[in-house]
């Protein structure tokens, strides 16, 4: 079964509720978990299941994504034959003529010639903005065994904003009987936006949608085909984090301080890979304090951190006190500054003695490269 599955990641979405965090990037390349970009999780899921060919569909704001995935070598996807292919919107004009992707079917239509050349019989479609460690090899096997036309991965643990999710109702055999798209209240099984189907079915769905001017996968495929297609729901109840808003990002980050969550997300048998930067180890100074915190490599901690997520190369100087914060790569908190409930984007500098305070329900987010 190895090499029978082809991976497609939708990596073009933007989300205005992420404010500062998605100013310079799309939702896939948002830093998450101390050293990762969200897309690392789905890429690693693919690679860990033996997927050798992956198409990454990008649209706008993808410079940071390109910089991150590069040739794909850190995921062993830099291959002569197959491997990682980044699919920018080259010369695509949809029927509305504005060149934007209004939905996943639009995006797939935009890369139609790529889809035709897929050399595997099956395709897994996934969003690049969910942090989850999936046993994808098992899921694929279950798809083959179930005889379903399509397998949808979903969870019974609901902790996302339902207005941005799809929900499934299933029968006793696990087949989907109804789909609710972006409801106001969550009910049933929440889709993790990972779908497995045959290449043949995928191409016919893309043909159908493009000739009927349907851009949305949820509406055009799930809702309208729920009675024509056998869609099997694969329930995965491990940890999954969807980054939908700044407060949500903060909450999902803080959940990582729970060892049980980390054990699921960083299961050693399915390692999450990311861009290698050859950072040195993290140095703790003589008066440093680091309590209940996740700290990536290359940090220098001379002050105090508590309940924090620190990305690579963060510097917390003497006398600085940082609690309940997410500090992204290269953030410098200078001496005696105090930060509570703050998210700093890359390379933010907080000058000596500054005090910044947000709240867990409304964390203060500071945009990339800003100086406070």
């Amino acid at each position: 079964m190895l090499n029978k599955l082809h991976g497609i990641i939708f990596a073009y979405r933007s989300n205005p509720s992420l404010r500062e965090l998605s100013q310079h990037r799309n939702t896939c390349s948002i830093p998450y978990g101390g050293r990762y970009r969200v897309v690392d999780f789905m890429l690693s899921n693919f690679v860990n299941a033996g997927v050798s060919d992956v198409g990454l569909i990008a649209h706008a704001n993808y410079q940071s994504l390109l910089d991150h995935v590069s040739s794909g070598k850190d995921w062993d996807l830099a291959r002569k034959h197959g491997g990682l292919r980044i699919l920018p919107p080259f010369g695509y004009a949809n029927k509305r003529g504005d060149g934007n992707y209004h939905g996943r079917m639009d995006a797939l239509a935009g890369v139609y010639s790529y889809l035709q050349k897929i050399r595997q019989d099956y395709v897994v479609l996934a969003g690049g903005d969910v942090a989850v460690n999936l046993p994808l090899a098992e899921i694929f096997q279950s798809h083959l065994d179930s005889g379903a036309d399509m397998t949808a991965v979903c969870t019974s643990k609901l902790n996302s904003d339902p207005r941005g999710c799809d929900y499934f109702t299933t029968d006793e055999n696990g087949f989907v009987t109804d789909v609710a798209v972006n409801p106001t209240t969550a009910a049933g099984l929440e889709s993790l936006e990972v779908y497995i189907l045959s290449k043949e079915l995928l191409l016919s769905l893309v043909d159908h949608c493009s000739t009927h001017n349907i851009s949305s996968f949820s509406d055009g495929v799930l809702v309208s085909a729920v009675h024509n297609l056998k869609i099997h729901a694969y329930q995965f109840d491990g940890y999954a984090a969807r980054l939908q808003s700044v407060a949500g990002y903060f909450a999902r980050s803080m959940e990582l301080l729970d060892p049980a969550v980390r054990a699921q997300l960083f299961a050693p048998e399915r390692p999450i890979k990311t861009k290698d930067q050859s950072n040195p180890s993290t140095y703790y100074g003589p008066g440093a304090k680091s309590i209940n915190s996740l700290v990536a490599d290359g940090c220098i901690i001379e002050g105090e951190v508590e309940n924090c997520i620190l990305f690579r190369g963060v510097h917390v100087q003497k006398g600085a006190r940082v609690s309940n914060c997410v500090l992204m790569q290269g953030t410098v908190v200078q001496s005696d500054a105090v930060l509570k409930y703050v998210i700093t984007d890359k390379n933010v500098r907080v000058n000596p003695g500054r005090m910044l305070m947000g709240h867990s329900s409304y964390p203060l987010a500071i945009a990339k490269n800003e100086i406070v």
Partner: protein
Amino acid sequence: MLLAGGQGSRLHALTSHVAKPAVPFGGKYRIIDFPLSNCINSGIDTVGVLTQYRPLELNAYLGNGQAWDLDRSDGGVHILPPYMREGEKGTWYKGTANAIYQNMGFIELYDPEYVLILSGDHIYKMDYSKMLAHHKASGAACTISVLEVTLEEATRFGIMNVDDSDQIYEFEEKPKHPKSNLASMGIYIFTWSKLKEYLMADEADEKSSNDFGKNIIPSMLAHQEKLMAYRFRGYWKDVGTIDSLWDANMDMLSPENGIDPYDTEWPIYARTPTKPPLYTGPNAKVSHSMVTGGCEVYGTVENSVLFHSVQVEEGARVAYSILMPGTVVKAGAVVEYAIIAENTVIGEQAHVGTSPDDQNDSEWGIAVVAQNLKVGRGAVVPAKAMITRNVKGDDKKC
């Protein structure tokens, strides 16, 4: 040409499975990362690594050289083990010079004007391009990088006696009464045509031990070749003994004394697995230490270097120690003034090593526990011990 075949017998508990250059160092690295990173940072993109002793892990580590940007279609990193030739028996590398002699064919493939000879057991940052510029400007046949040491230290090194222009007129190996304080760092640049000549002559001499320091350099001096000393100022440490390896790791904690790993101008590259960020627990105390991804620290860590995936459980204390990847220090255990090799487990309440304050005599030294061992619950490993077998504890009691 990087000589990486050394056994490192003085580090034996740490080198029973790997060659010395592959011994982990400084939290994130292996010793060989320093010369390799120096090469790529100096603009050298063709490197031969000569391996002999226990090369498997080293070979796997080097791979295609990607971690050092040495994966190239022209040049790149090449692993050079001894090999068989037709018409004669293959031999091991008899000495450092013989190792290069046996690989003259490799060097000729690239038809270089100059060859840089390095060894894989030193920790330092050095721009070889400056040394090469010095070599070219002086028109020497050979340039040897030297470090100024104290006269007492000089008795432990190969010492270069030089004239006013730093031209070498005499080489003395570990002199009792040193005339100079310029110690050889084991870094040589040769004009290739000259080196070739001397390597062939050396090989023809049956009495020679085929060593650069003992044979090639003295022979060149005897033939009035121009040998120049190149003075290096900066941190350099030979990590051939347990004490110096421990010292050099401790130096990493004080970049002002040693090597600054955070300096992005001269990065040291390494090949490491991707691990999640380290986690410090609710009662963790970490001070003046380096800790790496995948570590979980619930106890106390002071003045120590922790490689990736080390676990320090609640109530455990680690001080002045080096914990290599995957070691586990169970609850209540104490590890002080010790080096613990990969994946070794120190049981609950065990005590490894002692502080020199508690035992200030000649019996004191760094305790070393080799890889993949278990030190049982409550067991005691004294200072200076070199442990290569499991140590039983009182596990039955619990």
